[in-house]
């Protein structure tokens, strides 16, 4: 049987199918998020099933996570992304003690115990300045794609100081920096450093390694370096960092199934 995890995030929906017993991945997919969250999730779910030669009858349990989790009607239950990312990361990197997840509209830091259980967590809750949204705004303002940010940042000699705590005002700052002739590479490096600094602030004084980086922002080149510099520690990007929450949800679906049938 198959167990499914659906991560209905703020920017994208992710579906992960795993074998209920072996926990091996049997299918996965990703689509942009939209207004009709349930419809989009259902559509993606069916597409992933079909592309893997499965039908709804093969699915024994579904767990939804992410901001839109309560809108996914087909799910048997919902579990927060904090727990799901922890489970997903522990499955992939069992020795991990810290998860940094930076998504489209929030960022979180999850501390794990030796068994991969959540010990504690913190989330940004003031604005989008520590999230992927900041990078999107920056890329748009600089007229480049997200994939170009890392390359630009790598060429920075003197990262710009971004002082604002708010994305809207930061955009104004970027405009000002451009007007002053600051190079795009220094602006990008400054923005990435500002995001990393907010993560460090959220983490408090202790970040226990190994540190695993997840979420869509983990795929933006340059961010891992910025985080490593800010934390003063090595940071590992999770395999397929966008899918970790969905993977954790699928594993938890499998666990629930086992408990229900035990």
């Amino acid at each position: 049987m198959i167990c499914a995890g659906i991560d209905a995030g703020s920017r994208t929906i992710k579906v992960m199918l795993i074998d209920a017993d072996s926990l091996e991945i049997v299918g996965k997919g990703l689509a942009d998020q939209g207004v009709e969250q349930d419809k989009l999730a259902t559509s993606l779910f069916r597409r992933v099933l079909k592309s893997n030669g499965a039908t709804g009858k093969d699915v024994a349990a579904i767990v939804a996570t992410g901001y839109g989790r309560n809108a996914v009607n087909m799910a048997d239950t919902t579990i927060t992304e904090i727990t799901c990312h922890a489970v997903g990361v522990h499955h992939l990197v069992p020795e991990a003690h810290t998860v940094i997840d930076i998504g489209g509209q929030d960022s979180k830091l999850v501390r794990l115990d030796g068994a991969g259980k959540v010990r504690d967590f913190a989330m940004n809750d003031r604005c989008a300045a520590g999230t992927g949204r900041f990078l999107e705004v920056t890329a748009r303002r600089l007229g480049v794609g997200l994939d170009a940010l890392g390359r630009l940042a790598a060429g920075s000699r003197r990262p710009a100081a971004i002082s604002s705590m708010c994305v809207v005002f930061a955009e104004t700052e970027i405009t000002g920096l451009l007007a002053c002739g600051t190079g795009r590479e220094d602006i990008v490096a400054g923005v990435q450093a500002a995001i990393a600094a907010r993560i460090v602030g959220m983490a408090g004084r202790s970040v226990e390694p190994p540190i695993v980086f997840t979420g869509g922002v983990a795929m933006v080149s340059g961010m891992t370096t910025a985080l490593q510099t800010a934390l003063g520690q090595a940071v590992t990007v999770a395999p397929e960092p966008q899918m970790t929450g969905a993977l954790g949800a699928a594993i938890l679906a499998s666990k629930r199934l086992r408990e229900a049938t035990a």
Partner: protein
Amino acid sequence: MTHAPERITLEEWDVQYEKLHRAGMREPRYGGPLSRHVEDGDHRLGRLRYDNSAAALRLWNFLLTEEDRLHEARAAGNKIVGTMKDLGTVPVMAYCFDNVTAFYPDGAWWIPCVMEGSDGSLEVADSLGIDESFCPVRAMLGAFVTGAHFPIPDMLICSVGATCDDFSAIAQRLNGLGHPIFWWEIPHRRCPERDEAGVILPGGLTAPKSQVEFVESELERVKAALEELAGARLDDERLSAGIAQANRVRQYLAELRNLAFTAERCPLPALEMLIAEMLAIHFCSDRPETIAVLGELLEEVKVRANAGLGVLDAGAARIFWVNPVADLQVMNLLEDCGGRVCGTEYLFTHALDAIPQDVPPLEALARCALADPMAGSSIDRAERICADVRRFGAEAVLISRIPGASHCALEGQVISEVVAEQLDIPVLEIEVPPVTDSMSATLRTRLEALVETARCRRRTTQGIRRSG
């Protein structure tokens, strides 16, 4: 107890009200269905969930009719005293006079929430230069300017010094607007030096004797001002009697907290507990009625606890709550997410501790005032929180920041670190503005995650115990 305990909506309360009436419920003169308060503009009530007992109805009606009581007191010729910032000391004195009615203008901070911003009090504060970079207690300024809520007091008394910076600024602005304030000073509490005599304060804290003497002298000035206003003397005998009555309130609350936070099933929702606890600091402008309201609530909770009945699932995660919330709905939200409140620290623990009755009464009040969590260090506060977390068996700590409140920016991390170090339980900080509707989804995620974490750790601990 006439019905199985549960949390119900305002609409359901209308039905419940009829049922209770048919069952012979007797109400005080301020009684009536809860929904009538919505017609007065308290729109938020329509979104809350309430305890379904007659005792809870009385508590809510008592709270929501305070403005009426104040206007009646004014009409009856009583002197109205606004006791500001000080939490639970000056009201004890004020209620020793037959012709003085005290109230807590700071309580206006809930007006923007309860009226869902329709009162405009925050906008008035904005226009006076006290904008959202200050604590929502700035709504008090708007309430004074519009005069739409409480009667303008005959006297305003406010503590200053080691209190809240925001409140001091707001009160100074109020003073400048033509509302004279009688200021009294509270020093930053410190431990006695080696060569200094120390005094034990409520809650087990210590302070130098010289600080207690200083606060006592300040309270002596307050007493003299109140005597002049009331036209009567306040001798030690009368003050001691007032302290004894205040201690009855505190004793009821101590029992209520102990039962509500330790019973196997939660016998009273967090929202009603919050309101009950707030009565300790201001008596809702009627001390004898406060005692009666709390007495009835305590009886209800005793019956429920003894019968093993509760308003939430037995497996609810046990959460210790730090700081009061500007939006009352968030208390409901924690319970909707599977949590229950097991312990609180709403910045006035000193008003819940018994006032000493074995020392001269003014000294007793001085000791009480110096035990104010805000008068001491954040470490002191964190230590008290840890002690109460252990006492009530909480599994996680939730710190709700008050936006703009300067103390919140500083103390959250200190409390988190001390709790993590001493107890190794999860701590979550959230920020709660007066109306949280637009951010309820993000708040829900945080609260659900805290509940999941606490429950997961509980299972792990139980597993370890079993295997051990």
